[in-house]
């Protein structure tokens, strides 16, 4: 048996594309986590729960509108807003009063929210898993280089750069972005020059939650929507944020791409041990750059 018989050029290309489309969702969710982490200094463990709520809400809205072909698109629009609203309530109702507490305290608070949200999801949607069909126009696959590539993955692939560009614009070109970057470095100074820091914090928190909701909505048609999807994503996106550099949006992008690619290529090269490759990548990165690849805001 030759070594890596499968590593032909076309197969490698497709596998890279599959990996990148997976990285898109990871990036969108991780960027929300890293924004909140960078600006508000909250390690929000409940971020995965918000992603799960996003996915379940998408299911409910999409099935409510299942008569028309637009069900999923309506859900993609509305479900993240629902999640953002939950984020707003969390921030205004609780976190607003806790910014002075130390990180361990915050970690415990957000952990308690993961439990609350898990039970909430169980109450609202029950313990069964749900499955949502891919929207009509993205069903099936394209043939690229002789290999099938699912249309929905292509859609995700196109969304990735769009979100990256949008986040770049937001953080570098808008007032909110500039203030939040400044607030991340020195909160009191920003307050002293007359900026309403609380408002900025609320906006960033809600935006982060919104991104979790988008991630949940986008992933809904590709997998089982079930209890437990919060745990699996939170571990992955925390690793992504850590290898990218805490609080750095570009770090989240880089981390997500590394995670997605090592996963896809690993499956191709050593299918029996495909699971371990992303984690090996994390270990390698942290061995050589313990503070992450890009500059950490912390």
């Amino acid at each position, binding site marked *: 048996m030759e070594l890596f018989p499968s590593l032909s050029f076309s197969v490698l290309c497709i596998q890279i594309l599959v990996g990148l489309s997976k990285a898109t969702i990871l990036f969108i969710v991780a960027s929300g986590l890293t924004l909140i982490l960078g600006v508000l200094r909250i390690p929000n463990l409940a971020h995965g729960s918000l992603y799960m709520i996003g996915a379940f809400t998408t299911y409910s809205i999409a099935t409510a509108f299942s008569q028309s072909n637009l069900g999923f698109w309506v859900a993609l629009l509305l479900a993240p807003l629902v999640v953002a609203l939950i984020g707003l309530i969390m921030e205004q109702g609780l976190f607003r009063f806790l910014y002075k507490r130390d990180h361990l305290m915050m970690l415990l608070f957000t952990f308690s929210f993961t439990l609350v949200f898990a039970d909430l999801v169980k109450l609202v949607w029950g313990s069964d898993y*749900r499955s949502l069909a891919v929207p009509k126009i993205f069903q099936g696959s394209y043939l690229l280089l002789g290999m099938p590539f699912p249309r929905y993955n292509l859609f995700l692939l196109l969304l990735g750069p769009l979100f990256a560009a949008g986040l770049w614009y937001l953080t570098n070109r808008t007032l909110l972005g500039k203030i939040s970057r400044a607030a991340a470095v020195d909160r009191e100074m920003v307050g002293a020059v007359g900026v309403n820091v609380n408002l900025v914090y609320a906006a960033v928190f809600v935006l982060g939650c919104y991104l979790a909701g988008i991630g949940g909505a986008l992933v809904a048609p590709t997998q089982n929507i079930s209890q437990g999807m919060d745990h699996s994503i939170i571990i992955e996106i925390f690793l992504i944020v850590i290898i990218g550099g805490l609080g750095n949006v570009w770090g989240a992008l880089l981390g997500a791409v590394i995670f997605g690619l090592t996963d896809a290529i690993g*499956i191709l090269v050593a299918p029996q041990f495909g699971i371990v490759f992303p984690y090996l990548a994390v270990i390698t990165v942290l061995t050589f750059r313990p503070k992450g690849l890009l500059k950490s805001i912390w």
Partner: protein
Amino acid sequence: MKTSLRFFCFAALVCCSLLTVSSAFAAKTIKVGIVDTYSGPASTYTNDVRDAFALAAGKINAAGGIFGQQLEFITRDSKFKVDLGLSAAKELVMREEVDILMGTINSSLALAISNFAKQEKIPFLVTFAKSAKITGEKGHRYVFSMNENTAMIGKAAAAGLAKKPYTRYWIAGDDYEYGHAVADAVWENLKQLKPEVKLLGKSWWKVGEPDFTPYITAMLAEKPDAVIIATGGRDCVPFLKAAQATGFNTQVPFYMHTGTEVSTLKPLGLSAPEGVIGTANYHSYYPDTVENRAFVAEFEKAYGRTPAVGALYGYIAAQFISEAYAKAGEVDTEKFIDALEGLSVDSPVGQVTMRAEDHQVMLPMFMGVTTKAAGKSVLVARDIVTISATEAMPSLDAIRKARQN
């Protein structure tokens, strides 16, 4: 005054006698304690077991019960956890004083309860757990399996696949006991039946893997003749979804146990992939016999949904209990077990027998290929081939060897 006193005494007497009568009634029931996962994703499967058992028990009771005693059952939710399930089983035996234990979909829990049942000398009827160890290596006098196990899946699948023209195979599955057990069993048997088959390689994914697309493109690159997918439970659904999205099913035929079963296909509706080769113990539409049609009609009338494979397990469990007591002639645990060994009962899939030597029920397996059917919102199996129970059962030599170690 005197009359009222007399009346009071009389009323008290009546009450007392009523009490003793009702307590006598209470003692005269046969209690089955069911421990299973009723919360979480596995409940999709277990609810059918319980509901079909309730349906069959209701019929038995309506026909006069077992020697006039009602067949009762109590359920406990194990939440797919071994410790919770085992303490629930203990509670059922110690406090509720159940005569028989039943359940569960979790193989580790089934083995734990089996061990407890052995110590307590309480019959334990396993429903849904698929580890071959239950009636193989860890089998004993008090444990019975009401469903197929990984060894039977392997033999049945190999028998079906050997008749197909494929020789170059790829194996992929859950990196977990069920996945490895099914993969090994299918492959061992297939190699024996068809020595020219060749294994190109294997891929293993974690249980609960959300996205199978990278695994599928990697397998497609190897260009196997066919793929054996050893994944179980709810993971079948996203796998089939990814297979549909990539067109995997149209390029490489693949086999998946329960791939044709309604529990797996229902969540996907008409977007489930066609052409998937699957095996299952039961279909509501096959075998198309009077018995099966009657059973489906009854189940649909009672619960408003089509029975899935779990319903068969629940139904035969109730049948075996009532017939075994009838054969034993009295309600006695040891006589019940003796009677259950080798007993045959009628079921929606025809007569099924409890093999005396290893306490494994002999169920036929149906191999088919998924297809859309006119007027149905869920895919069905076509070209169904029946693999008889005798073909699928592990050999008695294999059982003896496993138990010696």
